Structure formats: structure tokens, C-alpha cells
């Protein structure tokens, strides 16, 4: 047997495990602008439980970002997220005037000048992304969910966080994606490919939802129908969180799940309200808000000097 055939048969014997949950990591920046022209460059780094983002803001305007999965420890995730974009645009840490850390790992961003909670940062980011009409923000993160009210400047007026369990969060969606063996980006569209909208899965705990989903498959539900039932359950769960603080016009969803139309459209349907549209990736709202906070602080310092 030659070496090539041997390698092929080994590969066949142990096929690489496909990770259906793996969402697209990306680096985006404005190629029509040069960061070297900016007077003030600030950076926001959001180290979440599932994903980490680094956002660069030049003179108060979004310039670019990098979004990736959080690694084993917060300092490395923060460094990697920022390095991912700096390498591509030829920037060094010394070129950045101010860094703000946010997210659950915010106090572990080694080069941050300040840490600000994700609640304030999401509100600030949503205000930039959706405009000053944004009043109610639902942040659906990797392992928690937050309902936030803000004023026209993006300052928080009321907030509620539910971090007690992972159901209705990005991690819960990843579990279902792997269970159904369907890439995570396809879950939303496929959830609408059903003849009749099924009842929501009844369990609000991600562990029970998993066994309930398996039970539905065994009972003859198609995969699409199970996904639809799960998306509906997530939507109902986050709406019940929102109900406590109420929903005002100017509704905006941030976080990774905001990219799943299967959940977003069902939330809109239950609330009878459409969310404010944006062209910016909803997953960067926290890091963007952090970078904007940094910009305001720099401006204040400049005025005081």
C-alpha cells in the first residue's frame, strides 16, 4: 500500500467531526478609509462567554471589527480578537488611544484602560446602529439575555438581566444545531420551511429542551419542525423577560441570535412590533458601544486639558 492510499483509508476510518454549531468568524473594515487619517482611535473589546469582538472606532465612527469564538481564557481571547484585525490593517496597539473592555471577561482585558458593563455598552452600541429612536434593546448573548431601556442618547434607564440558565441563548442554539446536524446559519431559514407552525417546546432548560427535541424527532417531527418549535420556545422565553420592563417603540435586538431570523421574526410576531433595521452586524453592539464610550472619554480629556 502506498503512503497516499494509507492516508486516505485512515481518513475514512476516522472522519473529521463536523461542527455544525460553528458560526462564521469574520474581520471587516472600511477599505475606503485609512485609520492613519484619524485623530482619535478607540477600541472596544467584548469578551463574552461564547464570542469575542474587537471594534475599532476612528473619530467616533465605526471603522472595523473582528469577531471570533472566545477561547480558554479571557486575556488571550481579548488579545486574539484585537490582533486579528490589527494584523490585517497594519495597526499596532500603540496606535490606539483608548481601549475599553466589556462583557463577562471585561476585567481581564490586559491592555484596557477601563471596563464598562455590557449593559451600558449594548445600549450605546444599539443607539449607534439603530439611531436615536432606539428605546428597547434585547441582547441575546451566548449565555445570558438582557432587556434594556435607554434614552435618546443611548443611556440606560432600566435593565433586566437573566443569566441563570442558558436556554434561549446562543449556546442553546448551538446545541440544537449540533443535535439536528444542520449548520447554525441555516436554522433560522429552515424553521420557516414547515407546513404548520408547531407548538413551542415546553422546556425552558436547555438540557430538557435537548431531550424534548429528540423525543419530537422520534415522534415523527421533521428536523425543520423541531427547529421551528425550538425557535418559538426561545422567542417566547425572551419575550417573557421583556414583558417585565415593557417594550417601547424603537425595538432593537443585539447579540448573535439577532442573526437568526427564525427567532427574530417570531419575537416580532409575538410582540406585534418590527425591530429597527441596521446594516451593521448585531453581534458587535457591545464592543462598538465600548469603543464609543472610549471616544467620549478621550473627548472629555481633550476638553479638560
Amino acid at each position: 500500500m502506498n503512503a497516499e492510499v494509507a492516508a486516505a483509508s485512515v481518513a475514512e476510518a476516522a472522519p473529521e467531526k463536523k461542527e455544525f454549531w460553528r458560526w462564521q468568524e469574520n474581520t471587516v473594515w472600511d477599505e475606503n478609509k485609512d485609520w492613519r487619517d484619524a485623530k482619535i482611535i478607540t477600541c472596544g473589546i467584548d469578551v463574552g462567554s461564547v464570542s469575542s469582538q474587537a471594534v475599532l472606532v476612528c473619530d467616533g465612527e465605526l471603522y472595523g471589527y473582528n469577531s471570533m469564538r472566545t477561547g480558554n481564557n479571557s486575556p488571550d481571547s481579548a488579545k486574539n480578537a484585537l490582533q486579528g484585525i490589527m494584523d490585517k490593517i497594519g495597526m499596532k496597539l500603540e496606535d490606539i488611544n483608548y481601549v475599553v473592555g466589556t462583557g463577562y471577561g471585561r476585567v481581564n482585558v490586559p491592555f484596557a484602560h477601563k471596563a464598562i458593563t455590557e449593559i451600558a455598552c449594548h445600549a450605546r452600541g444599539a443607539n449607534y446602529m439603530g439611531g436615536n429612536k432606539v428605546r428597547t434593546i434585547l441582547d441575546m448573548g451566548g449565555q445570558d439575555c438582557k432587556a434594556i431601556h435607554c434614552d435618546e442618547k443611548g443611556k440606560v434607564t432600566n435593565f433586566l438581566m437573566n443569566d441563570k440558565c442558558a436556554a434561549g441563548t446562543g449556546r442553546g442554539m448551538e446545541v440544537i444545531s449540533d443535535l439536528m446536524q444542520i449548520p447554525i446559519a441555516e436554522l433560522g431559514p429552515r424553521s420557516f420551511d414547515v407546513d404548520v407552525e408547531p407548538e413551542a417546546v415546553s422546556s425552558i432548560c436547555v438540557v430538557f429542551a435537548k431531550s424534548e427535541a429528540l423525543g419530537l424527532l422520534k415522534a415523527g417531527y421533521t428536523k425543520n419542525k423541531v427547529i421551528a418549535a425550538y425557535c418559538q420556545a426561545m422567542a417566547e422565553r425572551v419575550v417573557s423577560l421583556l414583558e417585565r420592563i415593557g417594550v417601547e417603540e424603537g425595538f432593537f435586538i443585539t447579540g448573535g441570535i439577532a442573526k437568526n431570523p427564525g427567532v427574530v421574526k417570531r419575537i416580532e410576531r409575538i410582540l406585534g412590533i418590527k425591530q429597527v433595521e441596521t446594516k451593521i452586524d448585531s453581534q458587535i453592539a457591545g464592543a462598538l458601544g465600548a469603543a464609543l464610550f472610549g471616544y467620549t472619554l478621550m473627548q472629555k480629556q481633550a476638553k479638560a486639558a
Partner: protein
Amino acid sequence: MIANYGYKDGSGEYYISIDTDKCIDCAADRACLTACPKNMFEIITDDYDDEVAWVKKECTRTLAYSCTECKPAGGYTSLPCTTACTPGAIKHSW
């Protein structure tokens, strides 16, 4: 700002809400700090650089159990925290 700390689970909603605007010029001399037998409150500098009270992170997931001594079965009329906070910043949802 109204800050809600707590959770919702199968048995109900357990939130302590603090109107932090009242904490900025606390007229009760931060009485919440000493009133709570479980030492659940703390003064922090919030994201907008105001000094306000909050419920310590480690307490937010166990409110239903932590507050039981102050809330015997059969309802309650007054709580050490809400009584001490004369500006009326603290509210309980259950």
C-alpha cells in the same frame, strides 16, 4: 436608572429593583448597607460614574432563598432593606 437584579424561574420572578437616581444623593446615609442581615448590598461606581447601590453579583441568583428570613411564609409588611431606604429606591418583585 432602574436596575433589576435577580431572575425568573419555574417558581416565580425574584427581582430586587433599585432606582439608582435616588442613590446618587442618598438621603438615608447608605442605610441599605447595614440594614440587610445578609449583607447583599454594596455601593459601586456605575458606568456613568455615579455612586449607587447594587445587589452583589453572588447574591442575584439566590434571592428567593437569601431573603426568606425577612419574608416568612404568609407575606410580609416591611423588610429591613425597604424600611431603611427612606428615599424608596428599593423594591422587591415577590
